């Protein structure tokens, strides 16, 4: 049995002539948070969809818990314990916390053919789970629309964990959040990892990624620029490795020039 929970070896994905991913390699242990950094168009979305079983890689292999695996559908990935939380969170804002938490996987009770949705049990579990992450759901039958963005994100993550996720793939979980809300979500992600989950955190925000990540993989134009342990790389270095880094340097120089010229 391998040390790694999930391994991606030389994954490539082509869409016609476009090379969306080329030779991307990454691996995660239990309890590890790996941040996947990259600018827009770096191939993050393609990689997520490959992880989630939406796309099949054209080259390379995916190894889950030591076994070579092919995901035929998102359900396959889910059954292997790889849960993806997309940016839209798959939450219905008009529905209650409980009904969202168990959407599609409702707990049932009663005799065969007369099974009913066990709403009391569902309410209890939902409130308990949300309580564990420090969100006090006063009434689990309140609509999700009344929750803040951070709380919704936590609900979606909590739901994935409850339903047996081993590898959590989070797509930009903090991008739409304010500073305080983002820190709540990041704290929860660290807590989830400490319970033995492997987390792949996809973001373009180095400031959110750096404090929580154990390792960092930088994607640029479909290729991996390598994976670095936290001790081997600084925040500034990471920032400049993303396509934005160079651009920002250039921008800085240009701005300096512009400031100088009116003075002259």
């Amino acid at each position, binding site marked *: 049995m391998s040390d790694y929970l999930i391994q991606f070896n030389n994954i490539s994905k082509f869409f016609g002539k476009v090379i969306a991913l080329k030779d991307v390699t990454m691996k995660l242990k239990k309890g590890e948070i790996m941040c996947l950094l990259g600018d827009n168009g770096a191939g993050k979305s393609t990689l997520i969809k490959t992880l989630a079983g939406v796309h099949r890689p054209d080259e390379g292999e995916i190894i889950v818990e030591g076994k070579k695996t092919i995901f035929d559908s*998102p*359900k396959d990935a*889910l059954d292997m314990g790889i849960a993806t939380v*997309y940016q*839209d*969170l*798959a*939450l*219905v*804002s*008009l*529905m209650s916390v409980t*009904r969202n938490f*168990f*959407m*599609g*996987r*409702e707990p*049932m009770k009663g005799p065969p053919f007369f*099974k*009913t*949705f066990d*709403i009391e049990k569902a309410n209890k579990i939902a409130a308990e789970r949300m309580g564990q992450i*420090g969100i*006090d759901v*006063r009434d689990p*039958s*309140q*609509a999700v*629309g*009344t*929750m*803040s*963005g951070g709380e919704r994100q936590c609900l979606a993550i909590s739901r994935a964990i409850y339903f047996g996720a081993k590898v959590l793939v989070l797509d930009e979980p903090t991008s739409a959040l304010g500073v305080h809300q983002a820190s709540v979500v990041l*704290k929860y992600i660290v807590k989830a990892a400490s319970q033995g989950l492997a987390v792949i955190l996809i973001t373009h925000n180095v400031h959110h990624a750096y404090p929580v990540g154990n390792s960092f993989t930088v994607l640029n134009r479909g290729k991996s620029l390598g994976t670095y342990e936290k001790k081997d790389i600084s925040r500034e270095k990471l920032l400049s490795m993303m396509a934005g880094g160079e651009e920002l340097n250039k921008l800085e120089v240009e701005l300096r020039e512009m400031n100088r010229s009116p003075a002259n």
Partner: protein
Amino acid sequence: MSTKSKSIETKTDFNQDERLKKVSKLRLLLNRPELGALGGAILVFIFFGIVAGDTGMFSAYGVLNFLDVSANLGIIAIAAAMLMIGGEFDLSIGSMIGFAGICIAIPAIYWGWPLWMSIIFAFSMAVLVGYFNGILVVRTGLPSFIVTLAMLFILRGATLAITRLITGRTQVPGLRVLIEDDPLAWIFATDTFKWVFTWLGSMNLIALRTDGTPLATGIPPSVIWFIALAIITTWILMKTRYGNWIFASGGDKNGANNVGVPVGRVKISLFIGTAVAATIFATIQVLDAGSADTMRGTLKELEAIAAAVVGGCLLTGGYGSAIGAAFGALIFGTVSMGIFYTDVDTDWFKVFLGAMMLIAVIFNNYIRRKVTESK
């Protein structure tokens, strides 16, 4: 967790609690989609109680009269509400009523089928039409408004053309004699609790005919169907997995799909539901009148949707209740009959219907903002 962040959290919690407490009772009430319709129904009864309290509207006969009208509308309004919660419309309900009517009458009268077989045939056709509506909407991704609008014309036209082709007329009478001894028709054609009315009549508590039998003979089948459907659908929505899937499919199609809800199947089944409800409506009316009319059910789809909206359904799906639609139908039925007992010209009924719907939509929109706004 550091002490600092803990103290911040408790502070915000305290603030939120304080803010919630002020509105919690109101909010709890507002969270129920049928609240508006329930309030509206109570107001309507108070109004007619004052205006028409002594006119016979609230005699046994009068009550059964407006209940019958409400129940007929309610049967299709409940199905329309379920579909609206699932995020779709069905504009072909009214045409389906006419179509189902001739599906019963033509085989029974012209082809010599037993009545029960014609009724089963009509329900089979309803399942087909509903399935066709559903699969078209799900597969093409076109708005159900357009797809079922097309079906509205197709079904009505086919009803008219087929009936004239086979019978040379647009009405098919002569069904009444077939009802007796039919093993199935009684479900749609029998007044129940007759003994209660006979007893009430013998006690001189309700109005009698000149021959001594009571004026109101029993609870009409539509009312029984209506109450049964309201109970079953409410149970489905609140207590079953399928109910949760209906809310999810209407609330966010993609989100529901991503977590494994079979959105397509849910929607198709709801389209079958509206077509079947239209057929229940048609069967009751055809057997009651003893004849099928190709124009039966015209504009009923809009009344059903209006009742569902008054009952708290959002036009965007994902929110609403079956019991609310039942109250909505009760409001419309009561007013449409009650207006005869007042001095008001009955022409004003449609004005009332429209105004009621406008108020309901504005109210619902406000509720939705309340429910979904972030703190």
